[in-house]
């Protein structure tokens, strides 16, 4: 596949976002084609999570333009965005519903498009979860919660996935299989935005990396140029 | 001479609860009518009325009365249609030396154990009520009684006095259940009464409580199953709100029947115009009490409590409400009572034509005699 020929899926222009009084994103620009996998890199607090939340309308105020498949969503209420953008979101800190059991968590997000994975397929992908189907969300181990958080958006048929720090708290062995899952999704034509702290995990998966600092994209590096720009990247990511 | 250059009368009544329709705002109207009929002033000084809601709570009643006396120059307090409230206000007024002319409360404790030199009990008491009603019912074969009692001073007093009458006539009290004031579902109590095998279910309560109990007894077909209901304290407004279908045949004791003679009719019609309902005995009683209080002030030329109270004790009360009434040393206003029966719907000639007078109960039978009283002021 040649993602760079594919039609444009997401275009963000001059995005500003606020939490209450505090202005977090300062004119962020970003475009994404169907089938691409990109990462958002940056230090703690640089605004990566906020970018995802702003796409979903989960900030108190946002301005600028966000188009998915050409539809402007900047003024759309949150609950419609997932349907319009065929979008699935895996939040930072997992967002497992403590009062629901594993099955209920899995079946909670409504289907937004055809072609999602079936529950059985999902359980075969994450066998640990299958064992704990009737456990309450709050009783899962950290890693189990993380897996469930990813699993549940695969059911909805979303083709644009926003994944925030999905590797956090996972053992290396799970990281590996998670890497494989992402690779498979990519082959199936999913479009993915990864927010990652764990660059070693993300680097081999992505087509392009965006470096965010103070709510703006300060660097954009294609996978191919990664070696060449390693220096630059390190400068941005550590002091 | 008058303290503060005016006479101020306080009407402390239940303005929002179970007893609202039997005294409440109507009592204020009656007091105002009394003042108007008196001429609006006494010895050239204005007469004022002040009123408040005691919410059937003795503490609220007492603290309102306290403020009236301490800070608002009230000279006499009337209405007090709840025995707990009346007892607390009368107790306070005794300390503060203020006359209370209670028209609404029934407990005999007001003139017996807790009698006060300044407390006058004006319209009826729980001794007078059963004398007529219970006597008549026991005579007609209602030997075994079961009481449903309002759980406070008045209910207890009414139950005890009625029980004593029943037993003195050879009857028997087979059971009792106390229901909180302002109960809206009497069904459980009624069924208990039903299963007790009593001939008569005595309702030692008043106002809305009585109405609810009688209506629900009707729903559960209690009377049809052979038991009789005895409303120990029933007011005109209660009969009116139950309707004759349900209430017909009910016998009870009252101090006043509005359409008894031309004088009562004339006054009652005037009252009805202003209030929208015919007067109950206690509303008529407020009119009479205020009138006679003002008479006493006028005749003695002062509002000094002891003087006025002494004068009231000497007077013979005669007005549209009472004929030949006397205020005894224990505070009890001795006057005749009437045993009445609710008309059949076919007999009634109008919205308020509800009662037939069966017999008169002379004052000396109705009220505790000064020989028997436990009031410390007398013996």
């Amino acid at each position, binding site marked *: 596949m040649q993602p760079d020929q594919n039609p444009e899926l997401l275009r963000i222009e001059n995005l500003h976002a606020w939490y209450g009084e505090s202005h977090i994103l300062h004119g962020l620009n970003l475009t994404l084609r169907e089938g691409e996998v990109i990462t958002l890199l940056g230090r703690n607090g640089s605004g990566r999570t906020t970018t995802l939340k702003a796409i979903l309308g989960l900030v108190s105020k946002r301005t600028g333009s966000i188009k998915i498949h050409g539809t402007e969503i900047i003024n759309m209420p949150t609950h419609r965005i997932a349907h319009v953008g065929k979008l699935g979101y895996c939040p930072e800190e997992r967002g497992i519903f403590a009062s629901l059991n594993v099955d209920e968590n899995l079946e909670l997000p409504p289907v937004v498009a055809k072609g999602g994975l079936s529950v059985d397929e999902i359980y075969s992908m994450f066998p640990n979860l299958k064992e704990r189907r009737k456990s309450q969300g709050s009783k899962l181990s950290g890693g189990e919660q993380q897996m469930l958080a990813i699993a549940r958006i695969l059911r909805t048929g979303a083709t644009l996935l926003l994944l925030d720090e999905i590797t956090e708290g996972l053992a290396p062995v799970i990281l590996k299989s998670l890497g494989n899952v992402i690779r498979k999704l990519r082959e199936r034509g999913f479009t993915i935005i990864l927010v990652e702290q764990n660059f070693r995990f993300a680097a081999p998966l992505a087509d392009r990396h965006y470096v965010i600092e103070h709510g703006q994209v300060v660097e954009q590096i294609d996978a191919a140029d990664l070696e060449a720009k390693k220096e630059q990247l390190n400068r941005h990511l550590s002091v | 001479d008058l303290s503060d250059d005016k006479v101020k009368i306080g009407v402390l009544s239940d*303005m*929002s609860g179970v007893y609202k329709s039997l005294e409440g705002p109507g009592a204020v109207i009656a007091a105002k009518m009394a003042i108007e009929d008196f001429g609006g002033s006494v010895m050239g000084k204005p007469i004022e009325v002040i009123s*408040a*809601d005691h919410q059937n*709570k*003795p*503490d*609220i009643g*007492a*603290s309102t009365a*306290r*403020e009236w006396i*301490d*800070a608002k120059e009230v000279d006499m307090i009337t209405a007090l249609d709840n*025995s*707990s409230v009346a*007892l*607390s206000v009368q*107790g*306070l007024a005794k300390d503060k030396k203020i006359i209370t002319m209670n028209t609404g409360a029934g407990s005999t404790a007001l003139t017996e154990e807790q009698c006060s030199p300044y407390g006058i009990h004006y319209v009826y008491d729980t001794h007078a009520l059963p004398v007529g009603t219970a006597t008549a019912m026991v005579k007609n074969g209602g030997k075994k009684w079961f009481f449903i009692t309002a*759980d*406070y*001073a008045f209910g207890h007093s009414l139950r005890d006095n009625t029980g004593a009458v029943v037993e003195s006539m050879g009857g028997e009290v087979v059971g009792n259940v106390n229901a909180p*004031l302002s109960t809206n579902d009497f069904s459980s109590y009624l069924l208990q009464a039903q299963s007790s095998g009593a001939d008569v279910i005595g309702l030692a309560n008043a106002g809305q409580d009585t109405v609810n109990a009688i209506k629900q007894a009707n729903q559960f077909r209690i009377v049809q199953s052979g038991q009789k209901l005895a409303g120990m304290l029933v007011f005109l407004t209660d009969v009116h709100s139950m309707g004759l279908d349900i209430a017909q045949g009910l016998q009870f004791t009252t101090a006043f029947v509005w359409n008894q003679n031309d004088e009562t009719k004339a006054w009652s019609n005037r009252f009805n115009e202003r209030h929208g309902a015919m007067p109950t005995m206690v509303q008529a009683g407020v009119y009479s009490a205020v009138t006679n209080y003002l008479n006493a002030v006028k005749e003695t030329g002062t509002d000094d409590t002891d003087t006025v109270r002494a004068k009231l004790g000497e007077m013979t009360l005669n007005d549209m409400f009472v004929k030949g009434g006397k205020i005894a040393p224990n505070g009890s206003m001795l006057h005749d009572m009437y045993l009445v029966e609710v008309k059949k719907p076919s007999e009634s000639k109008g919205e308020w034509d509800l009662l037939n007078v069966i017999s008169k109960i002379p004052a000396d039978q109705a009220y505790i005699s000064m020989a028997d009283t436990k009031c410390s002021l007398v013996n």
Partner: protein
Amino acid sequence: MTNRILFILMLIAGLTAPFFAYPVFVMDLLCFALFACAFNLLLGYAGLLSFGHAAFFGGAAYITGYVTKEWGFSPLLGILAGTGFTMVLGSIFGFLAIRRQGIYFAMVTLALAQIIYFLALQMPFTGGENGLQGIPRGELFGFIDLNNSLAMYYFVFAIFLIGFGIIYRTIYSPFGVVLEAIRENESRALSLGYDVDHFKLLAFIISATIAGLAGATKAIVFQFAALTNAHWQTSGEVILMTLVGGLGTVFGPVVGAITVGALSHELSAFGSWVQVILGTIFVVCVMVFRRGIVGEIQRLTTRKQD
């Protein structure tokens, strides 16, 4: 600093009040103010919403009334007896309720208070619906006649100051600091080795005791102990007072009690409209003035300083 100024203002207002207003009414306000302060200690500083504080307020009134009327205790001794009783009662309630969190805590306190209400209604010595009437005011120290309304007033004001002082001290004490920490992050306080339940229990007992002190005093002032004081609506009223004045502020409950008390008194001629107005104030406070009167003033003044 601001506290000191407010305290002096309160002192002046309290000392002169009986010359401007009906003393019994001011005494009533003082009793409620103290009650609200006690409640505020629990909710505002320990984060515990008790929906059963009327049990202490009302319970103390009955005990005080009984011992002064029937056993001839002096008013001071009577108040001490009532207060001591609520200290015990508070320990029992606290012991039962403290292990529950949040809304469960509110419910347990409410249930326990309903039981006290039931006892107040049924026990022979309380007089049931009639209430315990004719409590003597008696003489303070054997020679000051409390039937004199000024003497009574200053006695009540002194009690108020003592109760207020205890609460003030508690808030600004090493104990108060730990309470604050518990409210901020309970499990962390636990892991630092603080036995959280014990702290909450102590706060509860102090609060209950002072609430009892207020109720006991009220019984002497009005010479009456009644069911109203033990009814759950009184528990609701004290929440309203605290909220209106400012939850978690030292002087808020005092201001709140005075505001609410004065309003209900002034508006009592309007019958049930009082309830409507109080309800509206409640709603407005919750919606827009969550800090209450004192809280809002504090915010404005600190803002100016910034």
